[in-house]
């Protein structure tokens, strides 16, 4: 093989690897388009014989997905709002100073980042029960999930603030800005893109939040789409084309946002997660 062909050969391998890796996604969409009898064909068909889109509206109405999706949006918006409002300032201060206290704060945040939700849910549930917060289950889930999302957000946004040159802020202070003025007029606009990407990541991950909602929200009208999906999913489920159609409706918005912002998300993640 001569040299100029090597990159194209590698590209072909890369595309094959990506196809193998993304096969589960393909399988979700293909299964959702198959009829109830075709999904049990043996051997399975890799392209639906009669692609049938009518399952999408039928699953949407039959499983009351409108309510579920709306609740997911509500919960994810609440989590993102709290995380961005509280987390941005915290990340800014942690990025701006170097001292023993700051190191200690950062250490605490890294520790909180690693707490599994399955460890936190028992005390949170009992505590919320004592405070009466279980009567406002969606609020309770938002609070719990925001505490889970915030450490990761702070670590990522701190990396963004580290890349804003300190001199710009100092120049603004010399020009007579107050600290608040310099923060809102200089630092925030410069870090805006990084914060936005991290906010979108927070939204996407809390859009799929499951364990807190499943444990805390008993009322079906307030549950998010993840709990709605678990309602007809289990070791013995068989209604696969409906399950896959539900999943497809649920994840397609997330996938679309991800594909659109892929480059930014990847660079935002890589700058923060290791630094």
């Amino acid at each position, binding site marked *: 093989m001569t040299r100029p062909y090597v990159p194209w050969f590698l590209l072909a391998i890369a595309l094959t690897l990506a196809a193998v*890796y993304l096969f589960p996604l393909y399988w979700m969409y293909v299964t959702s388009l198959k009829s109830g009898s075709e999904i049990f064909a043996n051997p399975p068909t890799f392209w639906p014989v009669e692609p049938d889109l009518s399952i999408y509206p039928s699953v949407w109405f039959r499983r009351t997905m409108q309510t579920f999706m709306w609740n997911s949006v509500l919960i994810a918006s609440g989590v993102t709002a709290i995380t961005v409002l509280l987390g941005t300032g915290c990340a800014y201060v942690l990025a701006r100073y170097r001292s023993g206290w700051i190191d200690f704060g950062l*250490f605490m945040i890294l520790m909180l980042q690693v707490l599994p939700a399955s460890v936190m849910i028992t005390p949170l549930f009992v505590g919320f029960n004592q405070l009466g917060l279980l009567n406002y289950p969606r609020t309770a889930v938002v609070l719990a999930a925001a505490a889970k999302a915030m450490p990761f957000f702070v670590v990522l946004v701190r990396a963004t603030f580290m890349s804003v040159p300190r001199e710009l802020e100092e120049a603004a202070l010399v020009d007579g800005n107050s*600290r608040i003025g310099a923060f809102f007029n200089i630092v925030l606009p410069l870090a805006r893109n990084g914060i936005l990407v991290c906010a979108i990541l927070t939204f996407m991950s809390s859009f799929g939040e499951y364990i807190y909602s499943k444990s805390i929200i008993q009322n079906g009208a307030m549950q998010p789409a993840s709990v709605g999906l678990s309602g007809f999913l289990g070791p013995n489920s068989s209604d696969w084309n409906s399950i896959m159609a539900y999943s497809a409706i649920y994840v397609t918005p997330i996938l679309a946002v991800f594909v659109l912002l892929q480059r930014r998300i990847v660079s935002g993640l890589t700058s923060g997660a290791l630094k």
Partner: protein
Amino acid sequence: MARFFNSMRDGIGFDLILVGAAMVFLLALAGLPLVYNILMSFQQVDMFTLGDLFRPLAGLTNYVAVVNAPEFWLVTKNTLIFVFTSMAGQFVLGFSLALFFAQNFPGAATIRGLFLVSWVMPGLVVGAIWSWILAGDFGVLNTILKAMGIIEAPIFWKSDPNFSIWAVVIANIWLGLAFNMLLLSVGLAAIPRDLYEAAELDGANAFQRFWTITLPMMRSTIGAVLSLGLIGTLQQFDLFPALTEGGPANTSNVAGYWAWQMSFKLYDFAKGATISVMMFVLVLIASVVYVRSTRHEVRG
């Protein structure tokens, strides 16, 4: 008083408010529950005392009961299998892919970025898709494996006690692989090119270059990736309800899901808290390793 407001606007008070608001929130919703969890693991908690803060003390009885539970050792074994095989799979496959995508060819970065979709998808949806792929009778994985001549009879991944934990491991490797690959790619990109050129001039072959340059240069990245993998695997929950619900007969149950079952299926909150505390100790060890491996960067 004026000085106080001035400091809020223009001095150290401004920083304290910014950092304090987040810290108070995190302490109230993460720190406090953690302490409360430890307290509960030493108390008798039942439906009548659920609303009290000071319940009858139970000493170590909760811990003794958990350790003596018939499924305790099975769950411990499963947790270890789940954590270590998931980590190993994610790391080895992630590292291989990272090395491959570090080659110079058109579209490398874009295609690599596509892999990350697995990471942004809700865990429950990933579980649902894999549950269908791994189905015993009509699952597509069995069909593919049979066509390739690897297996004779279909494997009932989710209901065969010998395979149920592996069903979750496979799904978890798929889920975490992309994130591992991405972080390792960053580490690879940071190795100076001229090191490789010098080694090549000295006659080192590809394997020697990997062994004497790539691995040593990647040490801190590998440490961080492995501990993040451990943490991520211990946090994994959504795949269990979607795939096996810990069954059959706890053969795919792990500590995190067991703790949740205790609290929310059996309403035995004290035992749920006890298992959580035990798991927290595990996580603590993992995070100390993680913080140590990122420390030089924390100190900036």
